[in-house]
């Protein structure tokens, strides 16, 4: 087993909160994930074994790699599926969008073992890139996604992540808004129950002028599930005119849940606007009364509200295949 320290925050706080990083044990990788892809440029996989101490070392070995790119002025959609085949697997996804391109990448993560996916994204100028990560691993599986992206001028990167709950889901995303007028839209939905864990760490660096980021994280915690959301908006010196917003909504249903939130705004520039808002709690009595007055029990009201989170996510993603898969997964879990 490897001891990993992942999802580190750029600005530390009190250690007693245990939020500065996530320390986990990870099965030694046995090779690359099985990849199936439509619209990809290249695929590479090999089986290697090694000893690792840090997450970055996992990626030093070329296990399996897939590249997706859109040439200048090209419009393209790609679908890539990574399957850990019940073992510990590591893969790398490279995404490159040329100037004026429009690229959609749908990433499906499946299996029942331990999957690590690193994603490197480069968004050129005046380009639009949408990346949708949907997790369909078995609930006994573990997942680490580690994404980095740079966004060119006047471009937009949209990142969507759907985590329906597993033993351990860890997601990190670092986005550098380098170009003037570049944008990030980040939306994450999660559902966690039993003793499932979700740990999300987003770091958005605003370098360019008039850049904007809009982060939303919405989810449900039931039973004794735990979730940590760490979101850092970092306005670097020179990012004048930039705007950053992070919003979190957490519906708490279980009696023994653990909900940790660390929304950080770092500001080294005067002419910026950073906002954070969080609403964390159970279903209000007013809401339950509203449902009851329409003949809907409290239990069914809970189910509807849980489904509303995945429905809202699907509307934003706006992809028929993704919507269908998510509905099968969530409705299956919620209605048994």
């Amino acid at each position, binding site marked *: 087993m490897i001891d990993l320290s992942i999802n580190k925050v750029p600005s530390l706080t009190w250690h007693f909160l245990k939020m500065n990083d996530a320390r986990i044990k990870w099965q030694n990788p046995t090779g690359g994930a099985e990849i199936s892809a439509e619209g990809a440029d290249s695929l590479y996989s090999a089986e290697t074994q090694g000893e690792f101490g840090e997450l970055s070392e996992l990626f030093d070995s070329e296990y399996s790699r897939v590249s997706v790119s859109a040439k200048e002025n090209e419009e393209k959609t790609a679908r890539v599926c990574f399957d850990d085949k019940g073992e510990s697997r590591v893969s790398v996804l490279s995404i490159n969008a040329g100037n004026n391109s429009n690229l959609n990448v749908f990433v499906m993560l499946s299996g029942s073992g331990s999957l690590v996916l690193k994603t490197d994204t480069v968004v050129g100028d005046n380009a639009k890139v949408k990346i949708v990560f949907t997790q369909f691993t078995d609930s006994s599986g573990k997942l680490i996604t580690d994404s980095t992206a740079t966004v060119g001028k006047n471009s937009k990167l949209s990142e969507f992540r759907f985590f329906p709950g597993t033993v351990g889901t860890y997601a990190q995303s670092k986005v550098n808004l380098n170009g003037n007028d570049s944008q990030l839209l980040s939306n994450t939905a999660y559902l966690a129950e039993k003793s499932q864990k979700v740990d999300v760490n987003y770091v958005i660096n605003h370098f360019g002028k008039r850049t904007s980021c809009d982060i939303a994280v919405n989810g449900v915690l039931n039973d004794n599930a735990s979730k940590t959301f760490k979101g850092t908006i970092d306005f670097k010196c020179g990012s004048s005119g930039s705007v950053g917003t992070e919003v979190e909504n957490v519906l708490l249903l279980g*009696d023994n849940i653990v909900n940790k939130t660390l929304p950080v705004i770092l500001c080294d520039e*005067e002419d910026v606007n950073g*906002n954070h808002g969080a609403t964390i709690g159970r279903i209000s009595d007013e809401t339950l009364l509203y449902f009851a007055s329409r003949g809907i029990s409290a239990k069914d009201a809970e189910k509807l509200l849980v489904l509303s989170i995945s429905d809202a996510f699907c509307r934003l993603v706006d992809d028929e295949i993704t919507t269908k898969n998510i509905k099968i997964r969530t409705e299956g879990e919620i209605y048994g």
Partner: protein
Amino acid sequence: MAENIKQVTDIDRSIYDIRDEENDDYRMKSGLTPEIVERLSQEKNDPEWMKEFRLKSLEIYNKMEIPDWGPPIDELDMDNISTYVRPKSDMKASWEDVPDDIKDTFERLGIPQAERKSLAGVGAQYDSELVYHNVKDEVSKQGVVYTDLESALRGPFAELIQQKFMQLVPPQDHKFAALHGAVWSGGSFVYVPEGVHLDIPLQSYFRLNAKGAGQFEHTLIIVEDNAYLHFIEGCSAPKYNVANLHAGCVELYVGKNSTLRYSTIENWSKNMYNLNTKRAIVEEDGRVEWVSGSFGSHTSYLYPMTILKGENSNMEFTGITFAGNGQNLDTGAKVVHNAKNTSSVINTRSISKDGGISTYRSSVVINPQAKGAKASVSCESLMLDSISRSDTIPAMDIRTSECDVGHEARIGRISDAQVFYLMSRGMSEEDARATIVSGFAENVSKELPLEYAVEMNNLIRLEMHGTF
């Protein structure tokens, strides 16, 4: 118009920078060793348990690491800090008996005037010792005790103090709590009996005059059930070119159905490392109100913490931080909800200018037993120029579904639209910006007990005559 740089001038520090000639009765040699701690204990005529406590705290201090998450404190070298400086005066009950040089300093800061006007009692600490302590007769008659902690350690409350001293803030809490445990001196003890409602406040004022010295006063306040107290604390020091250190400790015990309002105006000089620890524990239906103004210091670590122990207990924290040139102020609050139907409200404002760094840091912990807890956090930061920095690092750890937590944070500059609106109503740009900054700070500054000390007026009077 919109891109013009506005300027808020620095607070006028001239009255705080008065330096008295160092004319100490005794000054401990610099550094931190068991011998120094034992000598200090001897100087203070400690009971045996306190001497052992100090030496144990020193051991803990030596084992603990400097925090790696806050502003840098590398330039603070304990080998250059004298932990005890005794002024040439023992504690007086009459203002007239205080030596002239010390009296003059406090009078310039407005302390006696404040007492005459509207305080129930005043304590004044100069370097490591209290030089003046007085309580109005009508307050004493109600059974209220307000005295220096060292006298209290040898009086009728000795046993109670031994039970409570550094129990809320144990030396293991962090490195500078351990330091405090080892070398504390001075500070106040307040006891408010059950059912006593003290309508007028008590005030302590701390002045550090000695160059390269530390001040480690300990404030212990016990408010019994069904009582009320407002305690005001003020701090200042002249500026030297070497580091000074303040590592005080405040422990507040709030009884059932009682309220304690604790107001602090901190205006240490800009060579001061302010590594202070404050903590309150609140029983059933009790309430603690923190009002905190942080204006001075070179570096601050200051996060008053509240433990809501009893059902329906609640806290409110209102704070303002103003970081100017050369200052790195890391301030905020911590709250732990440990019982049913507890509630907390944290409301802060921070302003950064002239290269100052302001960090808001907080933690809200709601434990599983705190069913029905409510917490609200609001922090707003204003950047007044492009060379300053402002960060917000709020954390929440929630372990029950039966709670409601709301949080909002905002960082920004003065809005051009607001300036334009005010200018369209006939204001000059300068006045418009001044009005907006005043409005930004008002939510918090209106809570500050300005009427009690002249000093506070100077601290929050932001002179808005700028250059455009």
